C-alpha cells in the first residue's frame, strides 16, 4: 500500500492500552500524541492536527462524541475512528452520529487496525461487523413513524436494500473484497454504499434513531 504514514493521535483512558496500540501499530503510522480524557484530547488534537484520531468511546470526563463534536467544528480535516472493547450500541451510534468515520472493536488485529486507519485517512468509512449490526438494528427496529416525525425524509431515514445487503455481509464477517465478489459489484461500489450509510446516519434527523437508543438503554 501507500508508503506515506498517516499521523495518528490516540485517545484512551487506559495507559496500558495506549502503549499496546502504539507498539502494535509499530512504524506503519506516525503516532503524534495521546491523551487520556476529553479535555486533554481536545487541546492535544487541536495542537497536533493529526490525520486520524483513534478514539475510545467511553472516557472518564464524558463520551468520545464530545471530543468529536468539539474538534470537527474547529478542525474539519481531522478524522475519527472509534475504538472500544465492548460498548452499548447507543454510545457507538452517538459517536458515529457526531462525526466519526468508523468504529472497530479492540479485538481487531494490528494489521487490520493499520488498514482501517489508512482507509479513514483516505476519507473512507470503516464499518466493523458490530457497527454494521448496530446500524441494521437501529434501522430495523425503529420503523418510520410519520406521526412523531413531521420532517420525515425518506432518502435519509431509510437504507436501500443494497445498503442493507452490504451491512448484512459486513456483520457476517465479510471483507469488502468478499462482499464485492458475493454481490457481483466492485469493491469501490461497496465502499460507496458504506459511505452512503455513514452519511445517512450522520445527517438523518430521524427521531426514531434517538428513540431506539432510548429503548436500548432500558434493556
Amino acid at each position, binding site marked *: 500500500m501507500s508508503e506515506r504514514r498517516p499521523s495518528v493521535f490516540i485517545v484512551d483512558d487506559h495507559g496500558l492500552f495506549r502503549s499496546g496500540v502504539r507498539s502494535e501499530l509499530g512504524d506503519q503510522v506516525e503516532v503524534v500524541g495521546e491523551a487520556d480524557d476529553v479535555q486533554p484530547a481536545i487541546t492535544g488534537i487541536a495542537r497536533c492536527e493529526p490525520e486520524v484520531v483513534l478514539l475510545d468511546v467511553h472516557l472518564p470526563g464524558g463520551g468520545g462524541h464530545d471530543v468529536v463534536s468539539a474538534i470537527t467544528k474547529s478542525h474539519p480535516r481531522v478524522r475519527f475512528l472509534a475504538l472500544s472493547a465492548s460498548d452499548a450500541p447507543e454510545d457507538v451510534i452517538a459517536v458515529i452520529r457526531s462525526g466519526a468515520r468508523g468504529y472497530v472493536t479492540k*479485538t481487531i488485529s494490528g494489521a487490520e487496525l493499520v488498514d482501517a486507519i489508512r482507509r479513514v485517512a483516505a476519507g473512507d468509512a470503516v464499518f466493523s*461487523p458490530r457497527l454494521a449490526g448496530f446500524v441494521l438494528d437501529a434501522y430495523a*427496529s425503529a420503523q418510520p413513524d410519520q406521526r412523531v416525525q413531521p420532517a420525515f425524509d425518506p432518502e435519509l431515514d431509510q437504507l436501500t436494500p443494497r445498503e442493507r445487503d452490504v451491512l*448484512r455481509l459486513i*456483520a457476517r464477517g*465479510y471483507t469488502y473484497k468478499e462482499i464485492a465478489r458475493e454481490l457481483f459489484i466492485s469493491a469501490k461500489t461497496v465502499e460507496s454504499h458504506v459511505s452512503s450509510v455513514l452519511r445517512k446516519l450522520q445527517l438523518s434527523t430521524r427521531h426514531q434513531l434517538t428513540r431506539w437508543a432510548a429503548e436500548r438503554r432500558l434493556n
Partner: protein
Amino acid sequence: MDDRPDLAESSQQSSQQSSQQSSPQPRRAGLWPRDGGPLRRQREGRLAGGVAAGLSVRTGMGVSAIRAAFVITSLISGFGAAVYVLAWLFLPAEGESSTIASRAQGDKRGIGLAAAAASLLALVLLIGALLHIGWIGSLSWPPVVAAAGLVLVWRNASPDEQAVLRRLSEPLLGDTAAGQPPRRGLRITVAAMLLVAGLVILLYQHLNRLDLWPITGVALMLAAIVVLLGPWWLRIARDLMAERQARVRAEERAEMASRVHDSVLQTLALIQRRADDPQQVISLARASERELRSWLFDGRAPGSLDGLATTLSGGVRLIQQEVEAQHGIVVEAISVGDCDLDPDLSALLAAAREATVNAAKWSGASSVALFAEVEPDAVSVFVRDRGRGFDPDAVPQDRKGLAESVHARMARRGGSATVRSTPGQGTEVALTMPRTAGQREPSTAP
C-alpha cells in the same frame, strides 16, 4: 402363458424389421434372438414388475413402445394386463433364481385369497353381464386372471418388489410412509368417477325397469368389496401404524443422540484436552452433570437454551459467553432485531451453538463471527470463521457435529442449513428458520 409368444412374436418381428434396415443379422437362434440373454424382469428402469423393461432389453425395442402396447391391450380387453401379471408371476427377476409363482406354491392362504378374488370378480362380472352393463361380457376372463395373479404377486414378491408395489398403490391406499400428505385429490377423483358411473348406470339404463336387480347388484358388489378387502385394509392400517411408531422411535433416538453429542461427548472431549487443569475439569464435569440432571429429571434438553434465555438475542449472547468460556476463542456476536424464543427458534439456536462450537474446535481461527437477524418471516443465523476450512463434500457422513446436530436439527423443524467452506479460507454455516404465524409479533421493549 400360451398367449405370450404372440406378443413376443409381434414385438420381435418389428425389432427384426428395424434391425434389418440397419444391418442384416443372420444370427437367429430358435424363435427369439438371444442377444439379451434369457428373458428376465429388469430391476433397472422398471415401473412395476419390470416386464416391459425386460422385454425391451431382450428384443431391443423401445421400452415405451412395449409399455404402450401393454396399456392399449389392457384397455381394450384386459388382455395386456393379464399377460403382464402372468409374466410377472412366471418370469424370474434379474438376479433371482426362483419365480414368484414357484414361491407362491407354498402360500396356501395366498392361493385361497387369489381364488376368492378371482371368483368374486367373476361373480361381479357375471352380475354385470346379467344386468346388460355393456362392455364386460364374454371377454371378461383377462381381468379375473390379472386380479388373481396380482394377489399372488403381492403376497410373494421379494422385499424390494414389495416396496415398488407399495409405492404404486400409495395413491390409492391413501397413507404414505414418508409422512407426506396423502394424495387425497386422486382418491377423491377415483371415488367421484365411480360414483358418477354408478349413478349413470342406475338412473339411465334402468329407469324404466322397476325391478330391484340393479340395486341388489350394487349392494352385492359393495358387500363383496367390503368382505374381500376389509381384513386387508385392517392389516395395512396396522402395518402403517407399526411403521409410524418405528419412525417416531428412530427420530427420538436421533434427537437424543444429537443431544448427548452436544453435551456429554463435548464435555468429555474438553476434559481430555484440559486434563492438566483440575479446576477446569471439575467445573466442566459439574456443568455437564447439572445439564444431564436437568435433562433427565426436569425435561430440559442439554444444548438447548430453554429457560436460560427467553429471547433470540439473549440466546445469541449466551452462546457467545459459553463458547468463549469453554473454548478460549473470541465470538463476535451480533444480533439484529429480536423476538421471543419458541421451540423452532430454540432448535435454531442449538444448531447455531453447535456450528459455533465446531468453528471453535476445528477452524483454528482466533475468532468466530456469529450473526443473527430477525426478519418478519424468518430468522437467520450465520456462523463464520476465517480458519482452515474444509471440503464439504469430503466430510464423512458419520461426522456427527455437522450432519446430525446442524443439518438434521434444522430439517426436523422445517428450517434449512447450508455450509460454505473453502479449504484455507474458512467456513460459513447459514441457518434459516421460518417463523410461525404466532411468533410474528416483535417483542419490543416497553
